[in-house]
């Protein structure tokens, strides 16, 4: 027996409900405003589910767009409607937090291809009345950003004060500045890269193959069936979760410690705490995430290579932009290492954009961007406060008081 519990044989109904009827704000873009996709197709009508926090000021100049990572969603700073857990970035976003909802109007939307209410493979295709499944065109980071730009326009915001995000969210930040340089005043790409490496693609492929190897995946047509591809998706999550942590942190947290036993059982039970931990991560993930959606979002990251869209020159992607940047990496992040961040910084420098760069010392690996790392919080706060002064947003210290 593999060990992912059997009671997870069906994805909770709540996850499916969120795909069709999300517990958040939704914009339905009518057929006359289709989403043009890099795959060469359009989808219409389509939907974007989003959350907002704080108040948009009179001049509409204090909007911050937060872009979520691979399996994140729009619930940045509120309890998650399926799991009940706190928002995924509630350390960063909220009243008095670095992205201060008392000062800024924060928007976060579920990406196209996601499964929390924006059009994705778990949504119903209005043309057929059936779940999209793999009939949905393959989604790219640029498609996600194009959809976000439509949402931002719909909200009546011309220029975003800041676009911020980590990991896949950071890719969206870079794409935003490349696609809409005049609409982004400041940018905060964190623990990210301008392209996916062979290793990044390799790990994602392992995850996708785990999903597709599950007989219940059924070629992507599992909607409404009794059996759901939860085992494959759980394995995908387990493998991915290892890449989010550092070896040092794993060793410190788990070492070779045994789980509720004093000696190995000479079986394939979860003897080690790390096994138990990963199994828990896998089985809780399938409660809130759609297997096909996992294929789409991992694919979007793999296809991301911003320089490739600009004749192989990353600097050219940013030419002419005036956006002020703060790039952040973490010492123990081996998924998107500091060298990736430096490549972005060099390109920004070459394109003469104002850029700051900080490498935060931590042993928490890639996941550090989601955690309350004091130096990281201080950097973000300082960057946003100075950008707010430059933007003339009230509420911060004035330039003269320093």
């Amino acid at each position, binding site marked *: 027996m593999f060990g992912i519990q059997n009671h997870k044989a069906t994805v909770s109904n709540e996850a499916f409900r969120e795909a069709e009827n999300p517990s958040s704000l939704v914009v339905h873009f009518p057929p006359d405003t289709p989403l043009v996709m890099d795959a060469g197709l359009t989808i219409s009508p389509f939907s974007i589910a989003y959350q907002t926090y704080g108040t948009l000021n009179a001049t509409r100049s204090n909007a911050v767009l937060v872009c979520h990572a691979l399996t994140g969603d729009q619930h940045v700073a509120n309890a998650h409607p399926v799991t009940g857990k706190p928002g995924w970035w509630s350390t960063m976003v909220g009243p008095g937090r670095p992205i201060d909802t008392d000062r800024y109007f924060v928007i976060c939307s579920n990406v196209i291809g996601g499964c929390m209410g924006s059009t994705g493979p778990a949504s119903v295709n209005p043309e057929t009345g059936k779940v999209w499944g793999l009939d949905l065109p393959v989604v790219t980071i640029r498609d996600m950003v194009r959809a976000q730009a439509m949402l931002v326009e719909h909200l009546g915001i011309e220029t975003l004060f800041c676009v911020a995000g980590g990991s896949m969210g950071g890719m969206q930040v870079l794409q935003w500045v490349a696609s809409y340089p005049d609409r982004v005043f400041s940018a905060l790409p964190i623990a990210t890269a301008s392209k996916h490496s062979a290793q990044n693609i390799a790990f994602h492929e392992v995850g996708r193959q785990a999903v597709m190897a599950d007989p219940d995946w059924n070629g992507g047509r599992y909607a409404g069936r009794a059996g759901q591809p939860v085992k494959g998706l759980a394995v995908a999550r387990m493998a991915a979760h290892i890449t989010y942590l550092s070896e040092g942190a794993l060793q410190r947290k788990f070492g070779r410690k045994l789980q509720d036993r004093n000696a190995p059982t000479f079986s394939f039970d979860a003897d080690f705490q790390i096994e138990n931990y990963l199994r828990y991560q896998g089985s809780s993930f399938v409660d809130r995430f759609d297997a096909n959606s996992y294929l789409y979002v991992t694919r979007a990251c793999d296809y991301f290579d911003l320089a490739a869209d600009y004749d192989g020159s990353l600097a050219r992607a940013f030419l002419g932009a005036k956006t*002020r940047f703060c790039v952040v990496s973490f010492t123990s992040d081996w998924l998107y290492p500091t060298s990736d961040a430096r490549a972005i*910084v*060099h390109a920004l420098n070459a394109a003469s954009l*104002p*850029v700051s760069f900080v490498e935060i*010392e931590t042993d928490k690996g890639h996941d550090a961007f989601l955690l309350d790392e004091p130096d990281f919080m201080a950097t973000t706060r*300082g960057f946003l406060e*100075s950008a707010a002064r430059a933007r003339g947003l009230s509420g911060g210290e004035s330039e003269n008081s320093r």
Partner: protein
Amino acid sequence: MIYKAIPGFAGQANRVDLVLVADMVEPGGRALDVGCGDGALLQMLTRDQGVDGRGIEISQAGVNGCVAKGLSVVQGDADTDLADYPDDAFDYVILSQTLQATRHPKQVLEHMLRIGRRAIVSFPNFGHWRVRSQLMFLGRMPRTESLAYSWYDTPNIHLCTIRDFVQLVDEIGASIDRAIALDRNGSKMRVNAPWWAWNLFGEQAVFLLHRRKIR
């Protein structure tokens, strides 16, 4: 005012050489401050002189301080990271009190003059008579107010005299636009004083350089 030659972000505030460096930068240009510490000089340049200023700083605390001031500063190392900057990206590249702490001072200087049209370098003069006399009469590695470290824990691994520096400038094919030597009290020495006097009585020096040879 007496400055202390302490590389890193601790010592930038109130350093007299910073004012001299800032004086050499024409308003409105683009400047890169290598080893910008807590950003005191960059702030002077950007706020008071309308310079588009950027920085490189090795310490996390320094970078965080700069970012909070709204300065554009990249965490990095003068020895390794200057190579990544394109040619002619800046009007001025500044290295204040950092040259003697680099592993490859010649390379660093060459990169500075590749990246910028002009380079501004300030450094402590190891030819000062106090330094010389400590070695001569005490037979010990010198420790002065401006070089306050013991030989075994000093970050200053490539100290030079004003004469040494002038020779290096010639070797890399650069020209000196301006040179200033400061005496022990931080006052400018007489402009018409001969080089040997500067080398003996100047405790620190500030040089404005430009490229001479066509690369």
